[in-house]
Protein backbone atom coordinates (compact mmCIF):
# COMPACT_ATOMS: atom_id res chain seq x y z
CA UNK A 1 0.00 0.00 0.00
CA UNK A 2 2.80 2.44 0.98
CA UNK A 3 4.70 1.41 -2.12
CA UNK A 4 1.74 2.18 -4.39
CA UNK A 5 1.21 5.57 -2.74
CA UNK A 6 4.84 6.54 -3.24
CA UNK A 7 4.81 5.47 -6.88
CA UNK A 8 1.58 7.38 -7.50
CA UNK A 9 3.05 10.51 -5.84
CA UNK A 10 6.16 10.22 -7.93
CA UNK A 11 4.10 9.85 -11.09
CA UNK A 12 2.06 12.93 -10.19
CA UNK A 13 5.27 14.83 -9.70
CA UNK A 14 6.46 13.57 -13.04
CA UNK A 15 3.32 14.83 -14.86
CA UNK A 16 3.41 18.16 -13.03
CA UNK A 17 7.02 18.79 -13.93
CA UNK A 18 6.27 17.76 -17.53
CA UNK A 19 3.59 20.44 -17.72
CA UNK A 20 5.90 23.13 -16.37
CA UNK A 21 8.59 22.40 -18.86
CA UNK A 22 6.29 21.63 -21.76
CA UNK A 23 7.87 24.31 -23.85
CA UNK A 24 11.47 23.31 -23.29
CA UNK A 25 13.64 21.46 -25.72
CA UNK A 26 12.83 17.72 -26.32
CA UNK A 27 16.37 16.63 -25.38
CA UNK A 28 16.22 18.35 -22.02
CA UNK A 29 12.82 16.76 -21.42
CA UNK A 30 14.10 13.29 -22.19
CA UNK A 31 17.00 13.82 -19.84
CA UNK A 32 14.72 14.90 -16.97
CA UNK A 33 12.36 11.96 -17.57
CA UNK A 34 15.25 9.50 -17.62
CA UNK A 35 16.56 10.88 -14.33
CA UNK A 36 13.10 10.64 -12.73
CA UNK A 37 12.74 7.07 -13.93
CA UNK A 38 16.02 6.25 -12.25
CA UNK A 39 14.72 7.78 -9.01
CA UNK A 40 11.49 5.75 -9.30
CA UNK A 41 13.38 2.50 -9.82
CA UNK A 42 15.64 3.29 -6.88
CA UNK A 43 12.62 4.03 -4.66
CA UNK A 44 10.88 0.81 -5.75
CA UNK A 45 14.03 -1.20 -5.01
CA UNK A 46 14.40 0.34 -1.56
CA UNK A 47 10.73 -0.38 -0.77
CA UNK A 48 11.15 -4.01 -1.81
CA UNK A 49 14.22 -4.27 0.39
CA UNK A 50 12.36 -2.69 3.32
CA UNK A 51 9.47 -5.17 2.85
CA UNK A 52 11.89 -8.08 2.84
CA UNK A 53 13.68 -6.80 5.94
CA UNK A 54 10.37 -6.34 7.75
CA UNK A 55 9.24 -9.88 6.95
CA UNK A 56 12.63 -11.30 7.95
CA UNK A 57 12.50 -9.35 11.25
CA UNK A 58 9.00 -10.64 12.03
CA UNK A 59 10.05 -14.18 11.15
CA UNK A 60 13.04 -13.90 13.48
CA UNK A 61 10.96 -12.41 16.32
CA UNK A 62 8.43 -15.23 16.02
CA UNK A 63 11.16 -17.88 15.84
CA UNK A 64 12.77 -16.49 19.01
CA UNK A 65 9.35 -16.39 20.73
CA UNK A 66 8.66 -19.98 19.70
CA UNK A 67 12.09 -21.08 20.94
CA UNK A 68 11.34 -19.51 24.32
CA UNK A 69 8.00 -21.33 24.38
CA UNK A 70 9.53 -24.60 23.21
CA UNK A 71 11.50 -25.13 26.45
CA UNK A 72 8.19 -25.99 28.06
CA UNK A 73 6.27 -26.71 24.87
CA UNK A 74 5.57 -30.29 25.89
CA UNK A 75 4.97 -29.63 29.56
CA UNK A 76 1.80 -28.05 30.86
CA UNK A 77 0.88 -26.60 34.23
CA UNK A 78 -2.64 -25.84 35.38
CA UNK A 79 -4.67 -25.83 38.51
CA UNK A 80 -7.72 -24.78 40.42
CA UNK A 81 -8.67 -23.77 43.93
CA UNK A 82 -11.64 -22.83 46.07
CA UNK A 83 -12.21 -20.91 49.29
CA UNK A 84 -15.40 -21.67 51.24
CA UNK A 85 -17.34 -20.00 54.05
CA UNK A 86 -20.04 -22.19 55.67
CA UNK A 87 -22.61 -20.87 58.12
CA UNK A 88 -25.19 -23.42 59.34
CA UNK A 89 -27.68 -23.36 62.20
CA UNK A 90 -26.40 -24.98 65.42
CA UNK A 91 -22.79 -25.14 64.29
CA UNK A 92 -19.88 -22.73 64.20
CA UNK A 93 -19.35 -20.78 61.03
CA UNK A 94 -16.20 -21.86 59.26
CA UNK A 95 -13.92 -20.53 56.57
CA UNK A 96 -11.69 -22.94 54.73
CA UNK A 97 -9.40 -22.85 51.71
CA UNK A 98 -10.86 -26.19 50.79
CA UNK A 99 -8.75 -27.12 47.80
CA UNK A 100 -5.53 -25.87 46.24
CA UNK A 101 -4.68 -28.02 43.23
CA UNK A 102 -1.87 -28.03 40.70
CA UNK A 103 -1.84 -30.02 37.47
CA UNK A 104 1.38 -31.10 35.80
CA UNK A 105 1.32 -32.75 32.42
CA UNK A 106 3.93 -33.77 29.90
CA UNK A 107 3.60 -34.90 26.32
CA UNK A 108 6.34 -37.43 25.53
CA UNK A 109 5.14 -37.73 21.93
CA UNK A 110 1.94 -37.17 19.97
CA UNK A 111 0.55 -40.44 21.30
CA UNK A 112 2.10 -40.78 24.77
CA UNK A 113 1.39 -38.33 27.59
CA UNK A 114 1.57 -38.00 31.35
CA UNK A 115 -0.94 -36.22 33.56
CA UNK A 116 -0.99 -35.54 37.29
CA UNK A 117 -3.04 -33.68 39.88
CA UNK A 118 -1.51 -32.68 43.18
CA UNK A 119 -3.78 -31.34 45.90
CA UNK A 120 -3.55 -29.62 49.25
CA UNK A 121 -6.87 -29.83 51.11
CA UNK A 122 -7.80 -27.47 53.96
CA UNK A 123 -4.68 -25.29 53.69
CA UNK A 124 -2.34 -27.07 56.07
CA UNK A 125 -1.41 -30.73 56.39
CA UNK A 126 0.52 -32.61 59.02
CA UNK A 127 0.09 -34.34 62.32
CA UNK A 128 -2.91 -32.95 64.16
CA UNK A 129 -3.85 -30.67 61.27
CA UNK A 130 -7.12 -30.66 59.33
CA UNK A 131 -5.62 -30.84 55.89
CA UNK A 132 -4.22 -33.48 53.58
CA UNK A 133 -1.70 -33.52 50.78
CA UNK A 134 -3.01 -35.84 48.11
CA UNK A 135 -1.93 -37.23 44.77
CA UNK A 136 -5.27 -37.48 42.96
CA UNK A 137 -4.05 -38.36 39.49
CA UNK A 138 -0.74 -39.61 38.08
CA UNK A 139 -1.01 -41.70 34.94
CA UNK A 140 0.47 -42.26 31.51
CA UNK A 141 -1.96 -42.40 28.61
CA UNK A 142 -1.22 -43.90 25.21
CA UNK A 143 -3.25 -43.44 22.04
CA UNK A 144 -3.44 -46.83 20.40
CA UNK A 145 -5.19 -45.50 17.33
CA UNK A 146 -7.65 -42.73 16.48
CA UNK A 147 -10.46 -44.36 18.44
CA UNK A 148 -8.75 -46.13 21.33
CA UNK A 149 -6.50 -45.02 24.15
CA UNK A 150 -5.34 -46.70 27.30
CA UNK A 151 -3.82 -45.53 30.56
CA UNK A 152 -1.95 -46.97 33.51
CA UNK A 153 -1.39 -45.35 36.88
CA UNK A 154 -3.50 -43.54 39.39
CA UNK A 155 -6.63 -42.01 37.87
CA UNK A 156 -10.16 -40.86 38.59
CA UNK A 157 -12.87 -43.50 38.34
CA UNK A 158 -15.13 -42.82 35.33
CA UNK A 159 -18.36 -42.30 37.23
CA UNK A 160 -20.85 -39.51 37.88
CA UNK A 161 -20.81 -35.89 36.78
CA UNK A 162 -18.26 -34.20 39.05
CA UNK A 163 -15.80 -37.00 39.76
CA UNK A 164 -13.75 -36.31 36.63
CA UNK A 165 -14.69 -32.67 36.03
CA UNK A 166 -14.81 -30.70 39.27
CA UNK A 167 -13.07 -27.38 38.68
CA UNK A 168 -15.15 -24.77 40.57
CA UNK A 169 -16.25 -22.70 37.52
CA UNK A 170 -17.78 -25.85 35.98
CA UNK A 171 -20.51 -26.48 38.55
CA UNK A 172 -23.07 -24.68 40.71
CA UNK A 173 -23.00 -24.64 44.50
CA UNK A 174 -20.15 -23.77 46.84
CA UNK A 175 -19.76 -27.34 48.10
CA UNK A 176 -20.01 -30.43 45.90
CA UNK A 177 -23.41 -32.12 46.09
CA UNK A 178 -24.02 -34.67 48.86
CA UNK A 179 -25.08 -37.51 46.58
CA UNK A 180 -21.86 -37.70 44.62
CA UNK A 181 -19.84 -37.04 47.78
CA UNK A 182 -21.47 -39.66 50.04
CA UNK A 183 -22.73 -42.31 47.64
CA UNK A 184 -20.37 -42.44 44.64
CA UNK A 185 -17.98 -41.23 46.51
CA UNK A 186 -16.36 -38.27 44.71
CA UNK A 187 -13.60 -37.39 44.42
CA UNK A 188 -12.62 -41.01 43.94
CA UNK A 189 -9.38 -42.27 42.46
CA UNK A 190 -7.75 -45.69 42.30
CA UNK A 191 -4.67 -47.32 40.77
CA UNK A 192 -4.91 -49.64 37.79
CA UNK A 193 -5.30 -49.80 34.04
CA UNK A 194 -8.05 -48.44 31.83
CA UNK A 195 -9.05 -48.01 28.21
CA UNK A 196 -11.28 -45.61 26.34
CA UNK A 197 -12.89 -46.53 23.02
CA UNK A 198 -14.81 -44.13 20.80
CA UNK A 199 -16.53 -46.20 18.11
CA UNK A 200 -18.22 -43.15 16.61
CA UNK A 201 -18.51 -39.43 17.22
CA UNK A 202 -20.17 -38.73 20.55
CA UNK A 203 -20.12 -42.31 21.84
CA UNK A 204 -17.50 -43.27 24.38
CA UNK A 205 -16.88 -46.54 26.22
CA UNK A 206 -14.57 -46.84 29.21
CA UNK A 207 -13.31 -49.89 31.02
CA UNK A 208 -11.02 -50.08 34.05
CA UNK A 209 -9.49 -52.66 36.38
CA UNK A 210 -8.38 -50.96 39.58
CA UNK A 211 -7.65 -51.30 43.25
CA UNK A 212 -10.82 -51.57 45.33
CA UNK A 213 -12.49 -49.98 48.32
CA UNK A 214 -11.68 -51.04 51.87
CA UNK A 215 -14.56 -50.07 54.13
CA UNK A 216 -14.41 -49.97 57.90
CA UNK A 217 -16.75 -51.70 60.30
CA UNK A 218 -19.43 -49.12 59.48
CA UNK A 219 -19.50 -50.16 55.79
CA UNK A 220 -19.72 -46.50 54.73
CA UNK A 221 -18.65 -46.18 51.13
CA UNK A 222 -16.84 -42.83 51.43
CA UNK A 223 -14.69 -44.12 54.26
CA UNK A 224 -13.61 -47.03 52.06
CA UNK A 225 -11.42 -44.93 49.78
CA UNK A 226 -7.83 -46.01 50.33
CA UNK A 227 -6.47 -43.19 48.14
CA UNK A 228 -3.75 -45.51 46.83
CA UNK A 229 -1.69 -44.99 50.00
CA UNK A 230 -0.14 -48.41 50.69
CA UNK A 231 -3.59 -49.64 49.77
CA UNK A 232 -4.59 -53.25 50.21
CA UNK A 233 -5.02 -54.69 46.73
CA UNK A 234 -6.18 -58.23 47.44
CA UNK A 235 -9.57 -57.65 45.87
CA UNK A 236 -9.95 -55.60 42.72
CA UNK A 237 -12.75 -53.53 41.23
CA UNK A 238 -13.93 -53.49 37.62
CA UNK A 239 -15.62 -50.47 36.10
CA UNK A 240 -17.45 -49.95 32.82
CA UNK A 241 -19.01 -46.76 31.52
CA UNK A 242 -20.89 -45.81 28.37
CA UNK A 243 -21.38 -42.16 27.52
CA UNK A 244 -23.38 -40.57 24.72
CA UNK A 245 -22.81 -36.92 23.73
CA UNK A 246 -23.64 -36.96 20.01
CA UNK A 247 -26.42 -34.40 20.35
CA UNK A 248 -25.17 -30.96 21.31
CA UNK A 249 -26.20 -30.00 24.81
CA UNK A 250 -27.02 -33.60 25.80
CA UNK A 251 -25.02 -36.09 27.85
CA UNK A 252 -26.32 -39.49 28.83
CA UNK A 253 -24.05 -41.81 30.77
CA UNK A 254 -24.18 -44.93 32.88
CA UNK A 255 -21.53 -46.64 34.98
CA UNK A 256 -21.44 -50.12 36.46
CA UNK A 257 -18.77 -51.10 38.94
CA UNK A 258 -18.20 -54.47 40.56
CA UNK A 259 -16.10 -54.68 43.73
CA UNK A 260 -14.96 -58.22 44.46
CA UNK A 261 -14.79 -57.55 48.24
CA UNK A 262 -15.03 -54.11 49.81
CA UNK A 263 -13.56 -55.41 53.09
CA UNK A 264 -10.42 -56.52 51.20
CA UNK A 265 -10.64 -60.00 52.71
CA UNK A 266 -10.97 -58.86 56.30
CA UNK A 267 -10.84 -61.79 58.79
CA UNK A 268 -14.01 -62.76 60.59
CA UNK A 269 -16.50 -61.12 58.26
CA UNK A 270 -18.34 -62.42 55.27
CA UNK A 271 -17.07 -61.57 51.79
CA UNK A 272 -18.78 -58.36 50.76
CA UNK A 273 -18.80 -58.09 47.02
CA UNK A 274 -20.62 -54.99 45.87
CA UNK A 275 -22.15 -53.42 42.79
CA UNK A 276 -22.44 -49.71 42.02
CA UNK A 277 -24.93 -48.53 39.42
CA UNK A 278 -24.88 -44.90 38.39
CA UNK A 279 -26.72 -43.07 35.63
CA UNK A 280 -27.02 -39.41 34.79
CA UNK A 281 -28.31 -37.03 32.19
CA UNK A 282 -27.38 -33.45 31.40
CA UNK A 283 -29.37 -31.38 28.95
CA UNK A 284 -28.64 -27.84 27.92
CA UNK A 285 -31.13 -25.90 25.84
CA UNK A 286 -29.87 -22.40 25.12
CA UNK A 287 -29.33 -20.85 28.57
CA UNK A 288 -31.26 -23.48 30.52
CA UNK A 289 -29.52 -26.63 31.81
CA UNK A 290 -30.78 -29.52 33.85
CA UNK A 291 -28.65 -32.21 35.51
CA UNK A 292 -30.05 -35.36 37.05
CA UNK A 293 -28.18 -38.27 38.62
CA UNK A 294 -29.03 -41.54 40.34
CA UNK A 295 -26.57 -43.82 42.14
CA UNK A 296 -27.02 -47.03 44.09
CA UNK A 297 -24.78 -49.51 45.90
CA UNK A 298 -25.80 -53.09 46.62
CA UNK A 299 -23.46 -54.82 49.08
CA UNK A 300 -23.53 -58.50 49.94
CA UNK A 301 -22.67 -59.98 53.33
CA UNK A 302 -24.44 -60.32 56.66
CA UNK A 303 -22.49 -57.54 58.36
CA UNK A 304 -23.54 -54.88 55.86
CA UNK A 305 -27.15 -56.09 56.01
CA UNK A 306 -27.17 -55.97 59.82
CA UNK A 307 -26.21 -52.27 59.67
CA UNK A 308 -28.74 -51.52 56.94
CA UNK A 309 -25.85 -50.57 54.68
CA UNK A 310 -26.32 -53.37 52.16
CA UNK A 311 -28.12 -50.76 50.10
CA UNK A 312 -26.96 -47.14 49.79
CA UNK A 313 -28.71 -44.84 47.34
CA UNK A 314 -29.00 -41.24 46.25
CA UNK A 315 -30.31 -39.00 43.50
CA UNK A 316 -30.58 -35.34 42.63
CA UNK A 317 -31.99 -33.04 40.03
CA UNK A 318 -30.53 -29.60 39.36
CA UNK A 319 -32.05 -27.07 36.95
CA UNK A 320 -30.05 -23.92 36.27
CA UNK A 321 -30.32 -20.82 34.14
CA UNK A 322 -27.51 -18.60 32.84
CA UNK A 323 -28.69 -15.03 32.30
CA UNK A 324 -25.48 -14.23 30.44
CA UNK A 325 -21.76 -15.06 30.59
CA UNK A 326 -21.54 -13.46 34.03
CA UNK A 327 -24.49 -14.68 36.07
CA UNK A 328 -26.25 -18.03 36.49
CA UNK A 329 -28.68 -19.33 39.11
CA UNK A 330 -29.56 -22.87 40.15
CA UNK A 331 -31.82 -24.94 42.35
CA UNK A 332 -31.11 -28.50 43.49
CA UNK A 333 -33.10 -31.14 45.27
CA UNK A 334 -31.15 -34.18 46.49
CA UNK A 335 -31.79 -37.25 48.59
CA UNK A 336 -29.22 -39.74 49.79
CA UNK A 337 -29.22 -42.54 52.29
CA UNK A 338 -26.24 -44.60 53.41
CA UNK A 339 -28.62 -46.83 55.38
CA UNK A 340 -31.21 -47.51 52.69
CA UNK A 341 -31.18 -51.20 53.60
CA UNK A 342 -33.02 -50.71 56.87
CA UNK A 343 -36.54 -49.55 57.55
CA UNK A 344 -35.55 -46.47 59.56
CA UNK A 345 -35.99 -42.99 58.13
CA UNK A 346 -32.36 -42.24 57.47
CA UNK A 347 -32.64 -40.36 54.19
CA UNK A 348 -31.02 -36.92 54.05
CA UNK A 349 -33.04 -34.43 52.03
CA UNK A 350 -31.25 -31.37 50.73
CA UNK A 351 -32.78 -28.38 48.95
CA UNK A 352 -30.43 -25.71 47.63
CA UNK A 353 -30.70 -22.49 45.66
CA UNK A 354 -27.81 -20.27 44.69
CA UNK A 355 -25.97 -18.09 42.24
CA UNK A 356 -22.64 -18.15 40.37
CA UNK A 357 -21.09 -14.84 39.35
CA UNK A 358 -18.19 -15.06 36.89
CA UNK A 359 -15.59 -12.29 37.31
CA UNK A 360 -13.78 -13.94 34.41
CA UNK A 361 -14.71 -17.12 32.55
CA UNK A 362 -12.24 -18.96 34.83
CA UNK A 363 -12.93 -17.13 38.11
CA UNK A 364 -16.23 -17.49 39.93
CA UNK A 365 -17.90 -16.14 43.06
CA UNK A 366 -20.59 -18.42 44.50
CA UNK A 367 -23.37 -18.16 47.07
CA UNK A 368 -26.06 -20.65 48.02
CA UNK A 369 -28.63 -21.44 50.67
CA UNK A 370 -29.26 -25.05 51.73
CA UNK A 371 -32.07 -26.56 53.77
CA UNK A 372 -31.42 -30.02 55.19
CA UNK A 373 -34.36 -32.23 56.16
CA UNK A 374 -35.18 -35.89 56.62
CA UNK A 375 -32.69 -37.41 59.05
CA UNK A 376 -30.94 -34.04 59.35
CA UNK A 377 -32.50 -30.80 60.49
CA UNK A 378 -30.52 -27.72 59.63
CA UNK A 379 -30.19 -24.89 57.23
CA UNK A 380 -27.52 -22.39 56.36
CA UNK A 381 -25.67 -20.60 53.65
CA UNK A 382 -22.33 -20.96 51.89
CA UNK A 383 -20.12 -18.41 50.19
CA UNK A 384 -17.13 -19.19 48.06
CA UNK A 385 -14.81 -18.29 45.27
CA UNK A 386 -13.03 -20.56 42.87
CA UNK A 387 -10.68 -20.40 39.91
CA UNK A 388 -9.06 -22.58 37.30
CA UNK A 389 -6.25 -22.05 34.83
Amino acid at each position, binding site marked *: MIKKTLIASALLGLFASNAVIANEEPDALRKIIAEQQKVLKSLEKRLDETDQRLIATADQVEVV*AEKKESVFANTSIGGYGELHYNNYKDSDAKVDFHRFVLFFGHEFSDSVRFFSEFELEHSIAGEGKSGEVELEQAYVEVDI*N*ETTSSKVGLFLIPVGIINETHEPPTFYGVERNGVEKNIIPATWWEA*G*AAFNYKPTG*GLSIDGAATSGLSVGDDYKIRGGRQKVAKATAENLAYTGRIKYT*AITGLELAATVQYQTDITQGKDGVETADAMLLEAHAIY*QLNDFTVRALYARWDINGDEAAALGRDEQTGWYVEPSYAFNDKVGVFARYAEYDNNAGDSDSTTVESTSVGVNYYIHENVVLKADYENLGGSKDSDGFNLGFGYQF
Partner: protein
Amino acid sequence: MNKFLHITFLSMLLFFSGANCAAKGVYQTPKAFVNKAFAGEAPEVKVLWLTKEDKTDIAEILQHKYNRMRIRYWQLSDETVWILDEIGKEKPITTGIHIKEKKIKHFKVLTFRESRGDEVRHNFYSQQFLNASLNKNNQLNQHVDGITGATMSVRATTKVARLALWLDAKVNP
Protein backbone atom coordinates in the same frame (compact mmCIF):
# COMPACT_ATOMS: atom_id res chain seq x y z
CA MET B 1 -2.27 -59.38 44.24
CA ASN B 2 -1.27 -61.76 41.46
CA LYS B 3 -4.38 -60.83 39.54
CA PHE B 4 -3.46 -57.19 39.81
CA LEU B 5 0.03 -57.79 38.46
CA HIS B 6 -1.39 -59.86 35.63
CA ILE B 7 -3.77 -57.14 34.56
CA THR B 8 -1.09 -54.48 34.82
CA PHE B 9 1.25 -56.59 32.70
CA LEU B 10 -1.40 -57.08 30.02
CA SER B 11 -2.20 -53.40 29.94
CA MET B 12 1.50 -52.55 29.62
CA LEU B 13 1.64 -54.83 26.58
CA LEU B 14 -1.36 -52.99 25.16
CA PHE B 15 0.47 -49.76 25.86
CA PHE B 16 3.63 -50.48 24.02
CA SER B 17 1.86 -52.15 21.13
CA GLY B 18 0.30 -48.78 20.46
CA ALA B 19 3.26 -46.57 21.19
CA ASN B 20 4.40 -46.24 17.60
CA CYS B 21 1.04 -45.37 16.11
CA ALA B 22 0.59 -42.35 13.90
CA ALA B 23 -0.27 -39.03 15.49
CA LYS B 24 -3.83 -38.82 16.64
CA GLY B 25 -6.09 -35.95 15.79
CA VAL B 26 -4.99 -34.50 12.44
CA TYR B 27 -8.25 -34.48 10.53
CA GLN B 28 -7.36 -32.20 7.62
CA THR B 29 -4.27 -30.21 6.72
CA PRO B 30 -4.54 -26.41 6.51
CA LYS B 31 -3.51 -26.60 2.84
CA ALA B 32 -6.31 -29.04 2.04
CA PHE B 33 -8.83 -26.86 3.90
CA VAL B 34 -7.77 -23.74 1.97
CA ASN B 35 -7.80 -25.55 -1.36
CA LYS B 36 -11.26 -26.94 -0.72
CA ALA B 37 -12.57 -23.51 0.29
CA PHE B 38 -11.40 -21.99 -3.01
CA ALA B 39 -12.28 -25.03 -5.14
CA GLY B 40 -8.63 -25.88 -5.82
CA GLU B 41 -7.66 -22.35 -6.88
CA ALA B 42 -6.36 -20.91 -3.65
CA PRO B 43 -5.01 -17.34 -3.88
CA GLU B 44 -1.61 -16.29 -2.55
CA VAL B 45 -1.41 -16.11 1.21
CA LYS B 46 -1.73 -12.60 2.64
CA VAL B 47 -0.51 -11.18 5.93
CA LEU B 48 -2.46 -8.96 8.29
CA TRP B 49 -0.16 -6.93 10.55
CA LEU B 50 -1.72 -6.31 13.92
CA THR B 51 -1.69 -2.93 15.61
CA LYS B 52 -1.70 -2.40 19.36
CA GLU B 53 -5.42 -1.64 19.18
CA ASP B 54 -6.04 -4.83 17.19
CA LYS B 55 -4.32 -6.88 19.89
CA THR B 56 -6.49 -5.25 22.55
CA ASP B 57 -9.65 -6.19 20.64
CA ILE B 58 -8.36 -9.73 20.03
CA ALA B 59 -7.50 -10.13 23.74
CA GLU B 60 -11.07 -9.12 24.55
CA ILE B 61 -12.38 -11.91 22.31
CA LEU B 62 -9.90 -14.55 23.49
CA GLN B 63 -9.93 -13.44 27.14
CA HIS B 64 -6.13 -13.54 27.22
CA LYS B 65 -3.20 -11.64 25.72
CA TYR B 66 -2.37 -12.19 22.06
CA ASN B 67 1.33 -11.85 21.29
CA ARG B 68 1.47 -12.53 17.56
CA MET B 69 2.57 -9.68 15.29
CA ARG B 70 0.63 -10.84 12.24
CA ILE B 71 -1.88 -13.35 11.01
CA ARG B 72 -1.79 -15.10 7.66
CA TYR B 73 -4.96 -15.50 5.62
CA TRP B 74 -6.28 -16.16 2.17
CA GLN B 75 -8.69 -13.84 0.37
CA LEU B 76 -10.58 -13.85 -2.88
CA SER B 77 -13.12 -11.06 -3.28
CA ASP B 78 -15.48 -11.21 -0.26
CA GLU B 79 -14.28 -14.64 0.86
CA THR B 80 -11.53 -15.18 3.43
CA VAL B 81 -10.02 -18.27 5.04
CA TRP B 82 -8.32 -18.29 8.43
CA ILE B 83 -6.35 -21.06 10.14
CA LEU B 84 -6.29 -20.27 13.85
CA ASP B 85 -4.90 -21.95 16.97
CA GLU B 86 -6.44 -21.61 20.42
CA ILE B 87 -5.74 -23.63 23.56
CA GLY B 88 -8.64 -25.57 25.02
CA LYS B 89 -7.38 -26.92 28.32
CA GLU B 90 -3.69 -27.57 27.63
CA LYS B 91 -2.95 -27.85 23.92
CA PRO B 92 -3.80 -25.71 20.89
CA ILE B 93 -6.76 -26.73 18.77
CA THR B 94 -6.20 -25.81 15.10
CA THR B 95 -9.38 -24.70 13.35
CA GLY B 96 -10.09 -23.69 9.75
CA ILE B 97 -12.75 -21.04 9.17
CA HIS B 98 -14.01 -20.05 5.73
CA ILE B 99 -16.02 -16.82 5.63
CA LYS B 100 -18.12 -15.51 2.78
CA GLU B 101 -20.16 -12.32 2.84
CA LYS B 102 -19.33 -11.94 6.55
CA LYS B 103 -20.87 -15.28 7.47
CA ILE B 104 -19.15 -18.55 8.31
CA LYS B 105 -19.44 -20.81 5.31
CA HIS B 106 -17.27 -23.68 6.54
CA PHE B 107 -15.92 -24.47 10.01
CA LYS B 108 -13.70 -27.43 10.78
CA VAL B 109 -11.38 -28.55 13.57
CA LEU B 110 -8.23 -29.52 11.64
CA THR B 111 -6.04 -30.77 14.49
CA PHE B 112 -7.11 -31.70 18.01
CA ARG B 113 -4.31 -32.31 20.52
CA GLU B 114 -6.13 -32.47 23.87
CA SER B 115 -6.86 -35.77 25.59
CA ARG B 116 -10.50 -34.85 26.32
CA GLY B 117 -13.21 -32.89 24.55
CA ASP B 118 -12.64 -34.12 21.00
CA GLU B 119 -16.39 -34.08 20.33
CA VAL B 120 -15.85 -30.58 18.91
CA ARG B 121 -14.28 -32.12 15.82
CA HIS B 122 -17.51 -33.79 14.77
CA ASN B 123 -20.05 -32.33 12.36
CA PHE B 124 -22.89 -32.43 14.87
CA TYR B 125 -21.00 -29.73 16.76
CA SER B 126 -19.25 -27.71 14.05
CA GLN B 127 -22.36 -27.30 11.88
CA GLN B 128 -23.73 -24.96 14.56
CA PHE B 129 -21.31 -22.29 13.34
CA LEU B 130 -22.57 -22.27 9.76
CA ASN B 131 -24.00 -18.88 8.70
CA ALA B 132 -22.97 -17.33 12.02
CA SER B 133 -21.93 -13.68 11.93
CA LEU B 134 -20.85 -11.13 14.54
CA ASN B 135 -23.14 -8.74 16.36
CA LYS B 136 -22.13 -5.31 17.66
CA ASN B 137 -20.58 -6.80 20.79
CA ASN B 138 -18.36 -9.15 18.79
CA GLN B 139 -20.51 -12.08 19.86
CA LEU B 140 -21.92 -14.71 17.50
CA ASN B 141 -25.45 -13.89 16.35
CA GLN B 142 -26.57 -17.48 16.93
CA HIS B 143 -26.44 -19.75 19.95
CA VAL B 144 -23.87 -22.55 20.07
CA ASP B 145 -24.88 -25.45 22.30
CA GLY B 146 -22.10 -26.76 24.49
CA ILE B 147 -20.90 -30.31 25.05
CA THR B 148 -20.77 -31.55 28.61
CA GLY B 149 -17.24 -32.56 29.52
CA ALA B 150 -15.85 -30.57 26.58
CA THR B 151 -16.47 -27.10 28.00
CA MET B 152 -12.94 -25.82 27.38
CA SER B 153 -12.86 -27.10 23.79
CA VAL B 154 -16.28 -25.56 23.09
CA ARG B 155 -15.08 -22.27 24.54
CA ALA B 156 -11.88 -22.29 22.45
CA THR B 157 -13.66 -23.08 19.17
CA THR B 158 -16.33 -20.46 19.81
CA LYS B 159 -13.60 -17.88 20.40
CA VAL B 160 -11.81 -18.65 17.13
CA ALA B 161 -15.10 -18.42 15.24
CA ARG B 162 -15.61 -14.93 16.69
CA LEU B 163 -11.98 -14.00 16.01
CA ALA B 164 -12.13 -15.13 12.38
CA LEU B 165 -15.27 -13.05 11.78
CA TRP B 166 -13.63 -10.05 13.45
CA LEU B 167 -10.49 -10.47 11.29
CA ASP B 168 -12.62 -10.84 8.18
CA ALA B 169 -14.31 -7.53 8.95
CA LYS B 170 -10.85 -6.02 9.36
CA VAL B 171 -9.58 -7.02 5.90
CA ASN B 172 -12.95 -6.88 4.18
CA PRO B 173 -14.71 -3.83 5.68
